[in-house]
């Protein structure tokens, strides 16, 4: 007698290798975060969790506070005198804005890549070595530089010209150099503020592929004004929008969910209007 037996392996095959909610590790726990510049609220009452080894994207129209938000994660808003931050951000359970917390220690673990590639006017090697040098991680410096460049998928292109000026690289290469620079200090988290918006489409795709590889080892948070980019690479997507209260504009978090949900059946109409392009 032929008994047909076939366990369907499909679920495991098709799954995007994301752990289910109960197995996710929380890296950032944001609660009631409010950021104001000189009394004007730029971002109001944001609460969400960022998970380990996920790519989390912040999308939304311009002025919705997403860049302000991401800069809170590595205390870069400290550099702006008029900025004040309320609420809490817990990083692995520790309050990032507690009085005893040193911003340098924070930035050692939480790196940032900016919108316009900003290589230092030094050699390629000196660029990547800068982080380790200022943080006194100078053992096996050349090894660190090579590993960082390998991880940023730039090593093969520059290994014979490490002493040349970083400014001689193309835009896409410069951005990968900036990523290598961050990786050289062995961070836990990579923050990316519109990393590909200044690049041509092919360089953009390379950066996206790179993020796909990097998320195995790092937790990545990215701000992007290109929602298709968020759709392509992010595991979780947070949609921010502008709200006007008492004549003042401030950014709020509208919806935060798994990317497929945001782009197939978002819960909030504002989200749907934005992702379908009907947002005015």
């Amino acid at each position: 007698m032929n008994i047909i037996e076939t366990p369907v392996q499909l679920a495991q095959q098709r799954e995007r290798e994301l752990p289910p909610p109960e197995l996710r590790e929380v890296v950032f726990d944001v609660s009631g975060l409010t950021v104001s510049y000189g009394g004007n609220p730029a971002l109001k009452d944001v609460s969400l969790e960022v998970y380990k080894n996920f790519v989390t994207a912040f999308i939304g129209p311009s002025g919705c506070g997403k860049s302000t938000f991401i800069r809170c994660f590595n205390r870069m808003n400290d550099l702006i005198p008029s900025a004040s931050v309320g609420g809490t951000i817990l990083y692995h359970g520790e309050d990032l804005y507690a009085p005893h917390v040193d911003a340098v220690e924070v930035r050692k673990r939480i790196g940032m890549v900016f919108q316009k590639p900003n290589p230092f006017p030094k050699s390629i090697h000196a660029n990547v070595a800068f982080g380790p040098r200022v943080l006194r991680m100078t053992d096996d410096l050349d090894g660190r530089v090579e590993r960082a460049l390998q991880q940023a998928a730039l090593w093969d292109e520059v290994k014979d010209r490490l002493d040349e000026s970083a400014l001689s690289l193309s835009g896409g290469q410069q951005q990968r150099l900036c990523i290598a620079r961050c990786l050289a200090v062995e961070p836990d988290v990579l923050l990316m503020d519109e990393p590909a918006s200044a690049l041509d489409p092919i360089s953009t795709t390379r950066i996206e592929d790179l993020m796909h590889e990097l998320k195995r080892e790092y937790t990545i948070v990215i701000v992007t004004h290109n929602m298709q980019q968020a759709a392509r690479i992010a595991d979780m997507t947070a949609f921010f929008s502008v709200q006007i209260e008492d004549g003042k504009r401030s950014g709020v978090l509208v919806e935060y969910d798994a990317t497929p949900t945001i782009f197939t059946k978002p819960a909030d109409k504002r989200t749907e209007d934005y992702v379908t392009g009907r947002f005015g």
Partner: protein
Amino acid sequence: MSAAALSAGRRRGVWRGRIFVALLLLSMAVGLLALGTLCVDVLQRGLAYFDSVLLTNGPSSDPDIAGARPAILATLYLGVLLILFTVPIGVGTAIYLEEYADRHRWYNRLLELNIQNLAAVPSIVYGILGLAFLVRGLGLGRVLLAGALILTLLVLPTVIIAAREAIRAVPSSIREGAYALGATQWQVVSRQVLPAAIPGIATGSILALARAIGETAPLILIGALTFISFNPTVMGPFTALPVQIYNWTKLPDEKFKALAAAAIIVLLIMVLLLNAAAIWLRNRYQKRW
């Protein structure tokens, strides 16, 4: 439409444009002409006396054996001391104002205002200042050091302003990138901002120096003596090249006037070399951005 319709002659304002360019060329010509005339005049008068005697001998009442060696040496010493004093103070002030100071504090705003004003003060006022506070007040006496200090005060505002411009020219994206990697403020300033600003600072300092070595009034006021036959020392009496020139022109003998012209040539060469160095530096580091 005919071909003539596209020709430039039919455009209104063509003549206005041409006249404008002509006026610009005229202005440039005036400047060049004046400079040219001065140079030619000086060369005519002084070339005969521009020889090794001028450079090796001390002053004398006999124009044929008179030289400006002490004056030249003093000017060189003044230059070196000037750089030693102005660069650290000037760059330090600039770094403080650009990187550390909170613009909104009243004392910082006062400081800025002060510096802008000092740059415009006539040099003879510095001379009086130096005489009162350095020569007499501090009791330094009429020495080279005092001269150097006065010249420092004179050009310090210029160096500060130039250094601030150079520091400001460093893009903030560089600073942000360095901060984001975990650098402290001092590390950002010392490892990124300053190295990038050095060409601008150097250029500004050299130009300030070039101006300072031609200053006569403050040096006269603090008593740069004119008949020094020995080589100057830092804590001793001195004379400087511009002062020497001034005094030679006052003498009745025509030959001294010619000597003065020769000394002017020496001064001009110094200034020219300094300016050339400044331009070379600026060009060399221009491409980095």
